[in-house]
């Protein structure tokens, strides 16, 4: 049936700069300062080693379940590196490298993962929301933050992170639509790590790319090699600049891979092959970036070994601090804190009741 074709203004592109062999596409070189390159490398390394350490802490029962990030460092770190400290970061729960970049302490991560609410505290001066477990729900908060900044005539940008699975949630849809309609300064970063727990991308959506979902909102969308930190950074920088200068939101799909389990409660062998994991290990963003920096003359094997030793030490100190701090976090009465600005009378009563019971229990324990 012959019909008129509708031309859609936005096109969807794919960006890769540093390929799997660490070869640079010179035309696309984002021209990042040596200083920044080295800082990115150091954070990636730290995050990778920290992930490994968290896993061993979890296996030893010293922290609870947590979601490892290994393999995805470039995807979220590259994106957040395009932000100013006063921009907003709205995380999901698999952006530890980006959180560290933004100033989150390693011990707060440990404390949070060991079931203390104190670990979710955000200090003044850091413009991040706490991690968000309900998949996709945080996307809308970035729209509100971005819109509010614009309303206040500040040029702050908000960057929201989420996974491939999150793109199926209604909140993803509502968030991108609101951002586009209100032209809010928001950058939507999807870490497409191919899996949502056991659900592969092909069962998540029939769309060829996630980036093309931007077309539904009349918004620019781009797919990047998410294991190529240069590409992620370049795409994010462009999107952040667009947002900051009033050009509205962008959707960035970072194609990456979760090398480890979904969380430490998950057994990926149930749903994916070792072979697939091996293939993706060849695309690991860390050695790829490292080799590039070596070739560029910014790093040597020795320097890397030294940096590794330093971050391992840094992590050890954080673990020690965290374990010391947690000894002082015992007080269960803290669970009544921070719910309202002022505690309602009936809750106050419950708290007193609880304190009385605690005291009695302690007395019994002393006597017993």
């Amino acid at each position, binding site marked *: 049936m012959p019909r008129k074709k509708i031309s859609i203004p936005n096109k969807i592109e794919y960006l890769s700069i540093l390929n799997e062999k660490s070869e640079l596409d010179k035309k696309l070189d984002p021209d990042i300062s040596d200083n920044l390159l080295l800082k990115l490398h150091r954070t990636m390394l730290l995050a990778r080693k920290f992930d490994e350490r968290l896993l061993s802490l979890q296996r030893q029962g010293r922290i609870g379940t947590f979601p490892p990030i290994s393999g995805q460092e470039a995807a979220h770190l590259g994106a957040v590196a395009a932000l100013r400290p006063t921009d*907003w970061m*709205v995380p999901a729960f698999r952006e530890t490298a980006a959180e560290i970049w933004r100033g989150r302490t390693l011990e707060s991560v440990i404390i949070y993962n060991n079931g203390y*609410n*104190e670990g*979710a*505290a*955000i*200090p*003044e001066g850091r413009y991040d*929301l*706490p991690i*968000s477990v*309900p998949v996709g*729900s*945080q*996307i*809308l*908060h*970035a*729209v*509100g*933050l*971005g*819109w*509010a*900044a614009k*309303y*206040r005539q500040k040029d702050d940008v*908000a960057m929201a992170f989420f996974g491939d699975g999150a793109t199926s949630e*209604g*909140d993803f849809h*509502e*968030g991108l*639509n*609101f951002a586009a*309609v*209100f032209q809010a300064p928001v950058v939507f970063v999807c870490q497409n790590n191919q899996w949502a727990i056991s659900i592969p991308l092909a069962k998540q959506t029939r769309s060829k790319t996630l980036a093309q979902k931007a077309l539904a909102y009349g918004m620019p969308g781009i797919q990047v090699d998410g294991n190529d930190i240069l590409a992620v950074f370049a795409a994010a920088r462009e999107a952040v600049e667009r947002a900051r200068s009033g050009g509205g939101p962008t959707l960035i799909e970072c194609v990456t891979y979760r090398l480890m389990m979904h969380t430490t409660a998950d057994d990926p062998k149930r749903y994916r092959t070792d072979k697939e994991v091996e293939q993706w290990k060849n695309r690991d963003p860390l050695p790829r970036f490292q080799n590039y920096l070596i070739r560029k003359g910014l790093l040597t094997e020795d320097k890397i070994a030294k940096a590794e030793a330093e971050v391992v030490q840094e992590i050890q100190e954080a673990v020690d601090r965290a374990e010391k701090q947690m000894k002082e976090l015992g007080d269960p009465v803290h669970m009544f*804190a*921070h*719910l*309202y*600005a002022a505690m*309602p*009378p*009936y*809750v106050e009563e419950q708290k007193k009741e609880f304190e009385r019971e605690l005291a009695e229990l302690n007395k019994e324990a002393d006597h017993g």
Partner: protein
Amino acid sequence: MAKMTMVQALNLALRQEMEKDDSVVVLGEDVGVDGGVFRVTDGLINQFGDQRVLDTPLAESGIVGMSIGMAAYGLKPVCEIQFSGFAYQNFHQIENHAARLRWRSQDRYHVPMVLRAPYGGGVRALEHHSESREAYWAHTPGLKMVIPSGPRNARGLLVSAIRDPDPVIFYEPKALYRAFREDVPEEEEIMAIGEPRCVRQGSDLTMISYGAMMRPTLEAAVELKEKDGVEAEVIDLLTISPLNEKILVESVKKTGRAVVIHEAPRSFGPGAEIVSRLMEKAFYYLEAPIERVTGYDIIIPLFSREKAYLPSVQRIIRSARKVLAA
């Protein structure tokens, strides 16, 4: 003082708070150009412009989620959900985030937002437009749940809700939007959240209600006085949650008898909590079981039968007599 309907009084509260504080922004479906389907936001867009009064796309989770982000930035969003029956679309945003952000961030952020929504029956509305499900929010820690019963307290409470540093769910009894007028002062008048009011004194019986049910409750009290010589004390909850039972308990200690009245379905409804608090704190003063006069445990029927569903003066009187006779 001008005589105002509840719609006008709410509009006054919004307008004055917006004049006073440029962090107050209004958003929702049809709240701008149209002035809201009940006209509560009428004229605000003309006065404050479309950057402070946002007509949003049709998506409740979007409205609430965006409000949460605005609030985290430091604004005071007042969002409207067109009818409370469509606030379930944003349930997760309220439960997972609005009620928790202060706690989750350990006091770094808080969510000074208000979610306004018309609720309840009595205006011959369409399906899903007449429900009364305030108990959902009342059971959710981290929220406040407020329901005014007249133009004047609607205005005073809305001002408090807007200024409240924590999220407030503000249900407006749509049956009262234009049902009557009251004197509402032009100058600032604030009514604190968390303080039920005794609106009629009496020593024989305590009647506890809120929202649109205050009117049949007060009518019943008058009729009980006229026909039975009974002095009923009537308490208007105003804040459903956090429930402050203090004056309820004091009243029941005096009267020994109580009736609780609400439109919501009875089972697991707000009345159950009131009964339980009185059980906890006034049991030895009770001379008869407390009666609940409520909506039935069914879905409120389409409008031709909604009167049969809603507690009537007759039903309230019958229950009051039962409690008095016991």
